[in-house]
């Protein structure tokens, strides 16, 4: 489903070249539950951004469902992102002036779904994530766990094949973090490919496939 071959991402910082990703080869079949771990600066976030088409590799080929997506234009990549990839961030990234329901509705608006259908789909997702009574609340009025659930609902409303989570529990306490993880695993059981980037050993070890990174390279890859 996801196939990275020889992917590199170099930055120049001053006169120094930083090798965030150094000739990475990685195949992720559909429906996998994968964790990426490693120290800060090991390139795990860059890997996630490349898979999520937020960043372009310096060299290498990225096949998503057997299509070469590295060669696509900015607008085409946006469309792939919209339809195939969901993002979850450590700091949730909810739009503060929109209510929970409106935040969840955003991808549908971007996709051009008609309003009546949007309302129905948002209602379904709110139910699935147990947020019905929080629908009209703004992010400031929600707890951390609720915010991350809203973010997950938003990331999954278009039923993406791949869900990318960057430290999804990083800003949450243990209990609410566990709830969020349970929600992610529920999605994985539903057939979604889930890729989690984390520092948290406990969270990382729950994944079925664990990747360790250091200095832009994959060190270990165990199932």
């Amino acid at each position: 489903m996801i196939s990275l071959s020889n992917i590199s991402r170099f930055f120049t910082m001053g006169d120094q070249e930083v090798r965030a990703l150094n000739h990475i080869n990685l195949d992720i079949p559909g429906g996998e539950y994968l964790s990426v771990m490693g120290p800060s600066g090991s390139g795990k976030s860059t890997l996630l951004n490349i898979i999520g088409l937020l960043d372009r590799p310096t060299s290498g080929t990225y096949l998503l469902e057997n299509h070469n997506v590295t060669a696509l234009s900015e607008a085409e990549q946006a469309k792939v992102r919209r339809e195939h990839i969901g993002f979850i961030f450590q700091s949730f990234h909810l739009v503060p002036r929109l209510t929970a329901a409106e935040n969840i509705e955003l991808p549908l608006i971007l996709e051009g779904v008609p309003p009546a259908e949007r309302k129905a789909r948002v209602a379904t997702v709110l139910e699935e994530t147990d947020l019905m009574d929080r629908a009209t609340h703004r992010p400031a009025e929600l707890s951390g766990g609720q915010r991350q659930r809203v973010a997950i609902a938003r990331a999954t409303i278009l039923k993406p094949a791949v869900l990318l989570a960057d430290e999804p529990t990083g800003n949450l306490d243990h209990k609410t973090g566990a709830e969020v993880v349970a929600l992610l695993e529920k999605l994985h059981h539903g057939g979604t490919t889930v890729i989690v980037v984390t520092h948290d050993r406990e969270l990382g070890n729950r994944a079925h496939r664990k990747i360790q990174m250091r200095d832009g390279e994959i060190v270990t890859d165990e199932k």
Partner: protein
Amino acid sequence: MKNKDAIFLSFHTVVSYRLRAFLILLAMALGVAAVVVLTSLGEGARRFVVNQFSSLGTNLVIVLPGRAETSGGFPGALVGETPRDLTLEDAASLATIRGVRRYAPLNVGATEISAGGRLREITLLGSTANMIAIRGMKIAQGYFAANNGPNPADIVLGAALANELFPLGNAIGQRVRLGDRRFRVTGVFAAQGESMGFNTDEIALIPVDHAQALFNTQSLFRILIEAESRSAIEPTKAAVRAALTLRHDGEEDITVITQDAILSTFDRILTALTFAVAGIAAISLAVAGILVMNVMLVAVSQRTAEIGLLKALGATGKDIKRLFLMETLWLSLAGAAAGMGIGYSGAFFLRLAYPQLPAYPPHWAGLAAIATALITGIVASLLPAIRASKLDPVLALSKK
């Protein structure tokens, strides 16, 4: 993203940042209001002058003694030199010229009028009955039937003058004295107010032959001619000049001017003035535009994380550009609407304060103001919108 959704979403954003929206709106509104109010001032001045001229009569051709050395103006009156008199016979000869509907010889002078022990200084006109038709004057009571002469010693008094001399309102049939001559009041003008700085309510009109005798002159001050139609003005002017030149032994010592020419000159000048004032007002709109650009640039850097998020959710650069452009479009539209409200009510109060000045905004002012506001808004938001659309999503998302 569909346009309708983009419109709604950007509106949502605009109303979420109330203070920001209010300040931009205020700047836009003041710019638009300035355009409307200032152009209505210019237009008011133009209408004032046009009204003044048309109160003098329509299709007017005026003959003055003396030669114009430069075009325009009333050279004979300024220079005061009259090489050859313009006489009553000259005037009479115009009757047969094609295109002349009617003509009126005119003498003007200052004199004293007295009646019943009251005495005052007035401007006295000497002319024929045609004068009343040509100038569009109205006689409220009585009549004035003078021709080239000889005429009875009749006098028509201005409304204010009649009131002062005969407060009881019984002016008709009374005797008044001008210098050493006595006149019988046969009419009173309807109150007309001021026209070209000349208060028709305080004048008196007597037959032209009596005026010439009173002022002891053979020459006329003017001959007023009404052409048959607007298109007949120019041929009539040429024919009158030719006929009078012939009568004056082939010397062109008269000046023939048309009110139309003077009027259109004034009209052009004042229209240009209105445009110039509108241009000055548009500068304030440009200032508003720079403010909009500033505020939108700040908005882009404030909402960097949000822009990154939208990109992660699959918004294209175009979508983001559209959202920011529509935000300013909303603000400009609302500002233009508010500005129109302020501008038109400003013009209304201007008309209340100065009733003589018809300060109506010209029909193009509203359109021009709205178009300028919209264009200013769009141009000013172009740079911020493009900057937003080009943000690197990875960097944008990492910004808190």
